[in-house]
């Protein structure tokens, strides 16, 4: 893990990059990194996250600034801007069931090619996907998802990069922290090594490439 400034961290991300962003309706989202993405005006992003949040908050800010060209998410119902940009064909949206989305990201992070899920069988979600029958039950083959960058928000981060998350701000963060080529983390608190007990680490230090410095 390398400490890095907010500005330098976002400068690593080129236009057109694929970016996973942790958070659920803006809770557990690395807001400072998103603000800086807007400030540096990184465009044509392929965004992978749970939902579209709301305007002005979480990944909603990226749609406010029209930085996203492709979105993979499970729910966009609470952000009218995403709906508008989708209808206007400014953003291409791939809607994925939430449990399938997190398993596809987990597969990407864990070296699995994909998983077999019953979710979506017999619905629009099955279109174009291989179906596999096992013991009389039908499953969809859902393939692994990875990205160039994962932007992660932790509760505690220690000097080595070990991370914990708090309450419902955990959500997609630890799963995405395994599924990207470069993992950039912000934290509510950066603490000395040893403050986080080994049993409480949710993301082990070697997974973190960059920890954004405080202030």
């Amino acid at each position, binding site marked *: 893990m390398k400490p890095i400034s907010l500005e330098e961290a976002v400068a690593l991300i080129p236009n057109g990059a694929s970016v996973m962003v942790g958070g*659920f*309706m*803006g*809770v*557990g989202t690395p807001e400072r990194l998103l603000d800086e993405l807007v400030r540096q005006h990184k465009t044509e992003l392929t965004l992978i996250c*749970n*939902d579209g*949040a*709301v305007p002005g908050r979480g990944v909603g800010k990226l749609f406010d600034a029209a930085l996203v060209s492709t979105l993979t*998410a*499970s*729910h*966009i*119902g*609470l952000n009218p801007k995403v*709906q508008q940009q*989708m209808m206007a064909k400014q953003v291409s*949206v791939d*809607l994925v*069931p*939430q*449990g*399938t989305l*997190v*398993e596809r990201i*987990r597969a990407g992070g864990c070296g699995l090619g994909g998983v077999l*899920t*019953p*979710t*979506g*069988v*017999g*619905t*629009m*979600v099955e279109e174009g996907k291989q179906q596999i029958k096992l013991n009389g039950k039908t499953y969809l083959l859902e393939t692994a998802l990875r990205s160039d960058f994962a932007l992660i928000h932790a*509760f505690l981060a220690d000097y080595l990069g070990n991370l914990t*998350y*708090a*309450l*419902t*701000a*955990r*959500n*997609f*963060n*630890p*799963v995405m922290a395994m599924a990207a080529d470069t993992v950039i983390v912000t934290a509510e608190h950066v603490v000395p090594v040893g403050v986080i007990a080994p049993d409480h680490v*949710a993301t082990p230090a070697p997974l973190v490439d960059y920890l954004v410095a405080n202030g």
Partner: protein
Amino acid sequence: MDPQTLIARRVALELRSGYLVNLGIGIPTLVANYVPAGLNVFFQSENGLIGTGPIPEQGMAHPLLTDAGGRPISALPGASTFDSAMSFGLIRGGHVDMTVLGGLQVDADGHLANWMIPGKMVPGMGGAMDLVAGAKRVIVAMQHAAKGKSKIVRKCNLPLTSSRPVDLVVTDLAVIGFPGGRITLLETAPGVRVAEVLAVTEADLMIPTEVPEMKI
């Protein structure tokens, strides 16, 4: 009693002690207000919490403790938090005993449509497809009709949420089930006659010789 309260109170009677329950947004959320006294029920919020409590007292909300809609909630003693992979492992893996979801349409085969109206409203399925695929018991809580049109239809013309049929539908007019795979009127709302239900229902309901009134 207003229709939403009626529906929520009737659904709450389906709860059993020890159940792990997931409530969707809207009317389903209200079910938590009517847990029968003495029942120990675990409510899951799919953003990563078991043991959701009521809306926090003034000044007690924490920005990192929210429901699936992003609104502040509280956590009861014995609550647990986890990531989304675990949350949907619980859902898909059959560990959720009961889920209560809103609906746009339910048809005679028990199929639910509740995640999009093509060309008009595309909110996305969120966790609904996993919940219907995985929960042990799926209950739909919704108004019987919208803008004068029955939401209990012969065949859904909106995109389905799952090929797995739901187990029970509770509306402001009726309780509808699928014994033997046939859509059946099980109960009527207080003061509502069977004929009134049939008049506003598109699907052809089976009518048992006796149709009791909801006991709220």
